[in-house]
């Protein structure tokens, strides 16, 4: 019966319509799903490619720096073996005083310090000022002087002889107490002299000058020439409190740790210094 069928047909129609709708919807869902999956795959692919690119970039940079390190090593080897003509003979006329700052922990390795000093002595450096914060090198002074043989402390060295004619190396030992503490003592020295003048009736303002401070430092035993070059051996890229008064125009080079010191690196730094032109601000 039609009414009976109609519902069925209708139902069927309806059902078919729904089915269509459902099928369409399912197709749409499927389509959406596929799109979503594709988008996700695409996104992950892009992410993966970015990761890859980033790591490739880092690999390239690491390789570059590795190559640079190798090049430096090779250069240091060539310098040490004397194959590079430019580094064989150094003009040290401008290097009147070389200072070495050593990390106090590394300063305990006296043998390395002695080796470094013997290198310097061999190339003709005439005056070396050794510094570490805690005075470890000061305590090892006798051992170092004995091992070097041809070095003298400033008080014994013949300061009258011309700088380039000296046969031995002058070796100074300096620590934190010669820095700021030394300046404080020099200030105290100057103030005492000023008070003496004031008490004897000279009523004038204190006229301290830089040369007077230099003389005062010398008078209290904290004097010394300004180093032309300062080599810092240690992990920190600072001079660790080296007597500041003497550092006005000193070239400062960080050399890395003492345990990885290289003859070639030292020679390279000294040669670079000999080519520097200073106009002293003018």
């Amino acid at each position, binding site marked *: 019966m039609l009414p009976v069928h109609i519902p069925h047909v209708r139902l069927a129609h309806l059902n078919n319509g729904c089915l269509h709708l459902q099928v369409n919807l399912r197709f749409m869902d499927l389509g959406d799903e596929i799109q979503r999956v594709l988008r996700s795959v695409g996104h992950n692919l892009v992410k993966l490619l970015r990761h890859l690119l980033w790591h490739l970039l880092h690999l390239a940079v690491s390789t570059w720096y590795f190559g640079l390190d190798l090049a430096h090593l090779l250069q240091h080897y060539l310098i040490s073996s004397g194959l590079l003509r430019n580094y064989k003979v150094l003009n040290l006329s401008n290097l009147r005083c070389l200072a070495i700052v050593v990390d106090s922990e590394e300063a305990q390795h006296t043998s390395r310090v002695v080796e470094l000093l013997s290198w310097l002595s061999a190339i003709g450096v005439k005056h070396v000022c050794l510094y570490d914060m805690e005075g470890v090198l000061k305590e090892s002074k006798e051992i170092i002087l004995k091992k070097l043989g041809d070095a003298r402390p400033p008080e014994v060295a013949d300061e009258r002889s011309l700088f380039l004619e000296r046969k031995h190396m002058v070796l100074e030992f300096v620590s934190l107490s010669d820095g700021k503490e030394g*300046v404080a003592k020099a200030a105290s020295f100057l103030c005492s002299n*000023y008070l003496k003048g004031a008490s004897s009736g000279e009523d004038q303002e204190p006229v*301290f000058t830089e040369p007077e401070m230099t003389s005062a430092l010398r008078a209290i035993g904290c004097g010394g020439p300004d180093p032309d070059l300062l080599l810092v051996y240690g992990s*920190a890229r600072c001079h660790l409190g080296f007597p*500041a008064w003497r550092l006005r125009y000193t*070239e400062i*080079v960080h050399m*890395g740790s003492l345990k990885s010191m290289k003859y070639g690196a030292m020679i390279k730094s000294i040669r670079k210094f000999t080519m520097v032109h200073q106009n002293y601000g003018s």
Partner: protein
Amino acid sequence: MVSLQLPLPKINNRIFLHFNPKPASFFSRVRNCSRAFPCKKKSIFASWTAADAIFGGEEETTTTTAEEEWSLPSELRPELMPKHVAVIMDGNGRWARQRNLPTSFGHKAGLRALTDLIDLSCKWGIRVLTVFAFSTENWLRPKLEVDIFMNLFECVLKEELKKLMRQDVRISVIGDSKKLPKSLQKLKTEVEDTTRNNSGLQLIFALSYTGQYDIVEACKSIAEKTKDGMIQPNDITEAVIEQELETNCTKFPHPDLLIRTSGEQRISNFLLWQLAYTELAFVKSLWPDFGKADFVDVLCSFQQRQRRYGGRDS
């Protein structure tokens, strides 16, 4: 200089720690980008300095907002920023000579680079910025060059004062002011008074200054005090001298980081007393070319060293 910024995964930065920090270069940019950074910039490579703005015209390279341009780069950690940065601004003359320009152009470009550095320092939480503007030895330069520099400095200070007030910058000037032109001396006093109560970045100009001059002046002040009986000569210690130095105008008198441009590796009589434990960064760029990228590079190196060796008293 180039700046490479990509959306990056977090990677272990330890493999780079044994490399020595290099001056600003493409490779150092990549090395320093070690943290994930949601990239919003369309342009990846950008190279712009204050010097280009004066002589090369501004390049339209990015579509970033002003805020993004000044925000702390992802490779820098705010908690490891140095409190006090000192700068020796070297290389203005050489920069001008390289371009066949008068030295005054170099100074102009240099002052522009300085204003950019001040902006960055304000945004990135640096508390004190000390710049070596003019050394006592610089008085030996040709009078014309010195006069031009002093006039230029005076003009820029007047022009930038409003902006510096908006940025809450406090200005201090250290050095032998008696040698400065009268107009600059008057301006110095006005500027210091006007900005005295500002609590942001403290900008210290070292003008007609040297480290030895600073120490000697401190000794003179102490000598006056000994004459007045306020202190005995035997009681003079490092701390007493410290209080009399001109850098006593700031809460953080000891720089954490010193930057010197132009490749020279010396302190040149700047803040001798104060630099005992300061990290020294010698950068090859000439001062007018020292831009944001160089500054980021130096700060990254500083922070890496800080990370390795822990804090230190400043």
